């Protein structure tokens, strides 16, 4: 629960307008989705674990509704149904509040956050991935944050390929994922002690999975399974493009970003800004999502947290 008054409200509005004008300049059309929808929609869109954090209630007929915990689910369903006949690619953007329940002790506990987001639906591959990454950098540059932000990129198929090779049961796979995500070196090495011949060796030193091109090179030395190798190829190609655009100083490869494996199917990204204690944006490729609504097609997008951006920029104005 947060009020914005006067100068703060103006600043917030300016940030929103800046982001939306960049989206518009890149031919992204604004979309406004319902704030309340059937809970089913979000469970299909986000997966049960995430959707359960939404606020749920029933209508007079006992049907389960939710305050939208994300916008992407609605956009994906809209693309698969309402806009099934429209020619691809589809480009959509939005500035909309989403509602989630979080334990209060956590840094990201606010129940309401406004997402500035975009979705690019119907194009696969590296050009589409690059397009959304460039969009993100352009917005952050227009907000004059260029001196202090970092976008980490990964391809979740690198982990998925390794996990498939180990043939882990779901609980053990989740444990491996968690240990990499939190970079628990000692526990991870204990976990992997029985898998020393496998591609999982790539994750033995979780503090060395973040960096630039050398991270991919090091992973290539150990990883042999086709699925992970293809993902490494794709990530390296993306990195080449980022370098050739002169944007490398703003990016880092982070092979240990495995926080949302069930959702993303290729590229995953997180945005960090100096002055914010948590990531202020995330996104990636979710080719599996529209399939849940009857029409599988590639899709990629990201969201930035407007409230977190406002806080960072407001504090900067005070200090300046």
């Amino acid at each position, binding site marked *: 629960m947060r009020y914005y008054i006067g100068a703060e409200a103006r600043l917030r509005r300016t940030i929103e307008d800046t982001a939306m004008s960049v989206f518009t300049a890149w031919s992204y059309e604004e979309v406004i989705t319902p704030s309340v929808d059937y809970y089913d929609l979000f469970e299909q869109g986000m997966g049960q674990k995430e959707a359960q954090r939404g606020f749920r209630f029933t209508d007079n007929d006992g049907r389960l509704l939710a305050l939208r915990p994300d916008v992407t689910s609605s956009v994906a369903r809209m693309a698969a149904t309402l806009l099934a006949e429209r020619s691809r690619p589809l480009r959509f953007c939005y500035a909309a509040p989403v509602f989630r329940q979080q334990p209060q*002790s956590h*840094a990201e506990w606010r129940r309401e956050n406004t997402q500035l987001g975009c979705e690019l639906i119907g194009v696969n591959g590296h050009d589409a991935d690059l397009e959304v990454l460039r969009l993100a950098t352009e917005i952050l540059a227009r907000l004059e944050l260029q001196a202090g932000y970092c976008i980490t990129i990964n391809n979740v198929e690198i982990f998925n390929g390794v996990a498939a090779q180990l043939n882990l049961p779901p609980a053990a796979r989740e444990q491996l994922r968690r240990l990499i995500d939190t970079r628990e070196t000692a526990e991870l090495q204990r976990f992997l002690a029985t898998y020393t011949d496998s591609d999982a060796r790539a994750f033995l030193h979780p503090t060395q999975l*973040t960096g630039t091109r050398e991270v991919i090179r090091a992973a290539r030395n150990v990883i042999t399974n086709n699925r992970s190798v293809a993902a490494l190829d794709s990530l390296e190609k993306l990195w080449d493009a980022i370098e050739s655009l002169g944007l490398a100083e703003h990016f880092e490869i982070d092979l240990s970003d495995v926080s949302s494996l069930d959702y993303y199917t290729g590229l995953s990204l997180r945005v960090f*800004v100096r002055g914010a*204690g948590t990531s202020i944006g995330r996104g990636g490729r979710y080719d599996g999502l529209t399939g849940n609504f009857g029409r599988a097609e590639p899709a990629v997008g990201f969201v930035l947290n407007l409230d977190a951006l406002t806080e960072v920029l407001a504090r900067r104005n005070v200090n300046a």
Partner: protein
Amino acid sequence: MITIAIAKGRMQDEALALLARAGVRLDEDARNSRRLAITDASGKYRFIFVKPADVPVYVEHGIADCGVVGRDVLLESQADLLLPLDLQIARCRIVVAAVDAEIMTRSLGMLRVATKYSQIAGAHFGARGIPVEIIQLSGSVELAPALGLADLIVDLVETGRTLRENGLTVVEEIAESTGRLVVNRASYQLKAEAVTELVQALEAAMNGGQEA
């Protein structure tokens, strides 16, 4: 400059000793002062000293970039942090203890568990479907069974002496706890160089310690 939050108490002495071996030194005056925020000799690190349970809070919010705190506190807080190093200091165990070790198998009713660690205790018994009523205390947990407040306790044990002197025996061990280096996710990306330097220095100090 990076800010390191250190859990006060036993962890503080062992952590500062390890940091000193890693080349991060606080002069004697600063260590003995009652100031809660002090900067090291090189000016690269600022230390803040807070209650153990507050370390994950400061680090998750990014007020501190790193922290040193026991695994028991981390398990209890469920904070979203990076845990790159097991510092192997302040080693202890989180255990279930009782006056009568057989109470767990004999009692089929609701057991009462007194603890400072309600999350850990709840998860431990919950995972195995043992119905318990958890009584949250903030200290001197060993008293609870003797006075009839609880059947069991879940608490931290170092040598076991406090347990013995209060007539308690260990029923089972839930987890081992040691001091951990925790890192804020954003600091890990935005202050990568400084954080990596600290991690590597601590790693070297720990390995050196083993050889000696």
